[in-house]
């Protein structure tokens, strides 16, 4: 499923805020879940959300005015892929908001 999160921060500032926000986000994942992340280049990030034995890989690329990327939910979670995308969007939005 594709993700598109607009912002007006420019690439560099957006990356800085995400770098700062990721540890906080990982610490605030609800019980039974986890988040790992790895930069794949200057502006490409891969993450893995884990929850109740399920793993959801997410890839994000930071562009000047938006984050674009995709996530892949396991078949068992097919019906909740919209919620997972919303979870990623909300979490990324919160990181981008914080200066």
């Amino acid at each position: 499923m594709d993700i598109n999160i607009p912002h007006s921060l420019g690439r560099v500032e957006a990356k800085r805020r995400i770098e700062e926000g990721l540890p906080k986000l990982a610490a605030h994942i609800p019980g039974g879940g986890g988040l790992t992340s790895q930069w794949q280049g200057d502006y490409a990030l891969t993450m893995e959300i884990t929850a109740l034995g399920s793993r959801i890989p997410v890839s994000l690329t930071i562009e000047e005015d938006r984050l674009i990327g995709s996530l892949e939910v396991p078949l068992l979670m097919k019906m909740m892929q919209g919620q997972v995308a919303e979870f990623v969007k909300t979490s990324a939005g919160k990181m981008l908001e914080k200066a």
Partner: protein
Amino acid sequence: MQVYTAPLRDMRFVLNELHQDDGFGGLPVHEEFTTDLTDAVLEEAAKVCQDVLLPINLSGDAEGCRYENGVVRTPKGFKEAYDQFVENGWGGLVMPVEYGGQGLPEAVGKLVEEMICATNVSFSLYPGLTAGAVTALAAYASDELKALYLPKMISGEWSGTMNLTEPHCGTDLGMLRTKADPVGDGSYKVTGSKIFISAGEQDLTSNIIHLVLARLPDAPKGVKGISLFLVPKFLPDADGNPGARNGVRASGIEHKMGIKASATCQMQFDDAVGWLVGQPHRGLEAMFTMMNAERVGVGIQGLGIGEAAYQSAVWYAKDRLQGRSLSGAKYPDKAADPIIVHPDVRKNLLTMRAYNEGCRALGAWVARGLDAERHATDPEVRQRAEDFVALMTPVVKALFTDLGHDSASLAVQVYGGHGYIHESGVEQYQRDARIAMIYEGTNGIQALDLVGRKLGAHMGRLLRSFFHPVSAFIEENKGEGPMQKMIEALEKAFGALQLSTATIAEKGLKDAEEAGAAASDYLRLLGLVGMAYCFAKSTKIAGLQLFFGTPDKAFYETKIKTATFFFEKILPQATAHFLAIKAGKGALMAFAEDEF
């Protein structure tokens, strides 16, 4: 009071969420049936069942069917309900499109069947038998017979029956005596008596198409000499409409314990004109196509009644004021608390609820298998689905009907003395549920089918279609986390099932009575593990929904509570069944006949 609102939310859960990873989904033939469309179908079915079938359930039981000079009258309101039912296309919901059916997935159809059975199981038998007959004819009849009979049967204008049992032979069909003599023009003259024929005669349809097991003159003895014949009540005329009366009639109806609005007939065939369906002497194979479809359907009857019994009991437990809560008055302003405050009443209610949700979840998986075995494009998936359906058919039939009857009995218990009175409505559930444990092969026969035919088939391949997903789920979810207690319990029960399988394989090969003695315990153990697997998966999905944020928090939280109840209060029964299997046949066979 008979109370029923279709559990649509849970139905949507088992249909759209629970089994998405089973490999049976994504069938191109069902692409057009989107979630929105199937939701709409379920909602409409719920309305028909609640508004049309439920109001004539209790009255139909009180009035029953009447027999007068070969004519059978169904109770008041049944003809009108049937007309409305077929007019809106419910009879052809899952039937083949090429003959006028709507071709919906069985996964949807079985949920609709559950609603029909919950609101009026007697009524369900009329379209239910037709559906089974259509399945057999579609698979084995000549193109000519299919073209002439299937469209009218699928539309519900004509109905179908299955005629196996004779006064002297039920389970042992090898003793069957009805004969069929070739006339020379491709037709046969069928002569004999049949009993216990559901919908053998009724006033709902303009023609009745009987599928009859009979012997040809040169037939070998035993089950290998049985052929299947199509015998219509009225012979179709040149235009395909009901013409001359055929030599088949009802000679009476049975006066039964339950399903009183279903006409169970004694049938007499006197040189009745019929046509062969399938190959000579291979009628049992064709009839078993019908029978297998019916067996899953009978299981759904148990589930439907179980759900209706649960809802009716919940209504009463909230309404009936008696005594005070053990932890202090919950409603001090009232003369007494409602009985739902009492732990034992809650245990009864939750047992019913867990049975229903467990069976619905397991049934939905099997229904997806039914779709995949027919329509999957990948031969490997088709084979796996066929294996799974073959393995689980006796489990669905026996487990669901046993638990449906248990639920009905528990509902009577919740009502207390009032439950024993006809007007309460719940004693009817228990009477109606009882037959489902008997017909289409008794539950004992289902257990023998499971251990005798299914376990060893293809070197255990059928069993692997169930064992593999359960084992993979346990492996995937083992370790730390909120589900660990549940996964450990599932692993323990699954281990008991694996050990039991090995025990039966080892002892049963040397001594068939060992397998027979273990059969019903084994079937229940497999059913418990199947339900536990579904509840564990449900818990995982519910947990994920709550984790990622759902607008339907209440549903998922309650699902986890029901699953927890199942694991803590019902799954421990698995150990008892395991121990009984391990004990072997000794205690059963030690008795000489004269010691009974």
